[in-house]
């Protein structure tokens, strides 16, 4: 399961509860290639290839949050596409199709009783969109960095010191916390009652991760030949965010570097108590 899937999973679960389906049962298909049999459960398609064959009738809602879904059969409830690819064949009968994101093709002979569309950003060039998004993130984090440099410089310094002095320990703590926290959040979301807590947790996680990146950028900014410290921090953060995005395109090595920086940032924020105290590993004799 990829990280990007998590917010969409939360969204789909949220929609599932608001759709008033029998929310206790949902089938989450996260990987592999599946042909669905008749099922009473709501279906959530993650990074998988799912086919609803022509002779199959599904009374419960279907949510496409990733992967590839092909519908040839009958869905008596709403089909919601949030992301991924949806193909509706000529024999398909669908009570309602709600499109929020992702790409879809619908055969002209298909019977779709109702169609709603929450088009957020169609028609725009995807490359342009990702550049704008990157610029927004970089600008926002740079602004946060500059502000923190001004008001909470000691905290930033402390976090940056922790990543620089103890990269392995902070990355390990970050990795462990991220793995367990993410599984815990998904798990909470599945209880449905705890979806708000899960969203809150995700938000806290994003803030902690952002703080880690800002601290790394702050460190980087100190190396830049800039006189004013908050400008240096802002420049460091912005260039780090762009560099991380570019690195992410490099397979394996790039991912490893990005992962290391992100996780050590998270770990450093946690072990320094948000930068309020220096981190010292347990003392060991030589």
């Amino acid at each position: 399961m990829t990280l990007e899937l998590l917010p969409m999973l939360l969204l789909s679960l949220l929609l599932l509860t608001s759709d008033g389906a029998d929310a206790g049962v949902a089938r989450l298909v996260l990987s592999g290639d599946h042909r669905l049999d008749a099922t009473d459960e709501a279906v959530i398609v993650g990074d998988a290839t799912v086919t609803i064959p022509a002779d199959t009738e599904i009374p419960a809602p279907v949510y496409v949050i990733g992967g590839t879904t092909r519908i040839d059969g009958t869905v008596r409830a709403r089909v919601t596409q949030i992301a991924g690819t949806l193909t509706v064949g000529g024999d398909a009968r669908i009570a309602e199709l709600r499109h929020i994101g992702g790409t879809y093709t619908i055969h002209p002979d298909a019977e779709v009783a109702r169609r709603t569309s929450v088009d957020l950003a169609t028609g725009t060039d995807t490359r342009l969109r990702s550049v704008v998004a990157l610029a927004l993130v970089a600008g926002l984090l740079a602004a946060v960095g500059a502000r923190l440099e001004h008001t909470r410089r000691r905290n930033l310094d402390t976090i940056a010191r922790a990543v620089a002095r103890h990269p392995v320990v902070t990355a390990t703590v970050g990795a462990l916390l991220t793995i367990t926290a993410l599984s815990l959040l998904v798990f909470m979301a599945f209880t449905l009652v705890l979806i708000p807590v899960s969203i809150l947790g995700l938000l806290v996680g994003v803030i902690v991760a952002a703080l880690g990146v800002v601290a790394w950028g702050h460190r980087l900014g100190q190396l830049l030949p800039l006189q004013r410290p908050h400008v240096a921090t802002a420049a460091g953060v912005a260039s780090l965010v762009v560099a991380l995005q570019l690195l992410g395109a490099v397979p394996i090595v790039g991912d490893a570097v990005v992962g290391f920086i992100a996780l050590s940032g998270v770990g450093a924020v946690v072990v320094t108590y948000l930068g309020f105290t220096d981190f010292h590993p347990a003392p060991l004799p030589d």
Partner: protein
Amino acid sequence: MTARHAHQPVDRPVRQSVLAVGSPRATDAATAARTGGRLRLVDLIADREWVPIAGYAFYVALLTAGYYYNLTFVQLGLIDLGSNRLGMTRSSVSLVMAVLALVALAVSVAGGVAMDRRGWSRDLRVKLRGLTAVAAVQLALTVLAPLLRTPEGFVVWVVACAATIGVGMPVTFSFMADLIPVRDRGFAAAVPAGLAFFVAALYPQQWRVEEFSAVMAVVMAPAVVVLAVLAFRPSQLVDRLAGQQAQFGPGRYTRPPASTASTAVFALAVAAMFAVFFIDSLGFLRIIDTPAYISTSWQSPDLGVRIFIAVAHVVGAAMAGVLYTAFDWRWLLVWVFGLFAFTHLLYTFHLRTAADAVPPLVLPGVYVLAVAFYTTLNFALWPDLSTSRTIGTRCAVGVGVAGWLASFLSTSVALASDAADVPLLTHLRYVDALALLLVAAVPLALYAARVRALARQEPS
């Protein structure tokens, strides 16, 4: 040792709050700046100190091989041998396994105490001789295993095997005091913990005792010869390795000025680790019997899944090694309990809501993380809570009571619940309850210990 090492001031551990992640200390930053929290092994390699490096290699190879043997032959092979080949009933095989655990425990404690009383714990050569004898007998037992035809022979075989395990446990675990400096113990414990499970996850795929016994015998025979040469022939290498104990020996929590490894602390550690092993075997024994879970994880026909599990073991052990080195052992314990509780919650939730769906890999993944954590802790903790005078006893009691007695008791309980037709879900509910209780109890106990420490400091 080079002069550089000899003249480095000893960075003394201070008693610090177990709740504080770390406490600010003026000298700490200086020490960290000088050594960079680096492994001693890195310095040793840079200085080409081959003798201690050989000691590392020996320790890691020994523990990996020993633990792998235990995971495969003892835990899987014996059950297969008894029930499938000798046609014994499930309960009588379990009875034999219980005998194995109890004999191993008794021999191990007796052996450990004798090692300390007679000073064998401090003599590397004596320990090597003991190990040679253990390895030779185990080689013979391995070769004999496929030839067993009667349940009586099986019982005799198991008792002999238990005796060698009993002698082997304090001997192998106490090698850490001779071979691994305190700074590197988390790392040295993580490598065998990761490797043994890594190999065990990939081989054997299908259990066939003849094939496995032949492969093991081919690997073990040269190892026994090497051990015998090291143990009985005069060698400078062994002499120099034996001399390391004075420096490496005292465990991390026993060093002056403040030893935090009192008998009470040791007893608590044993109790906590007992609970860990007990929960693990209690839950796991039933999960292992549930085909839907085991065939989609540990015994999956899909090699990718098994590689995932194997790699997760290595990653988990590496994390545990880093955490053990950087934090107090009690933090690692909190994580172990937390991960176990979470694992059981995941399994129970899956059972309740989606029992017929393919279980996601996160279930075995979190489980593996917990196992990697406690295995690493088990390797490193007992030597670190002992001095060279107590290491035999403490390793024997620690591993024996926490590992073997817990497995014995939980096997009995799991079998009893199986025999009484307790459904998996009910069984796991008890395990869940226990896991949650411990998750709550450990942080509370840590907090109470802190309160007690503060109360003592208060001027009267």
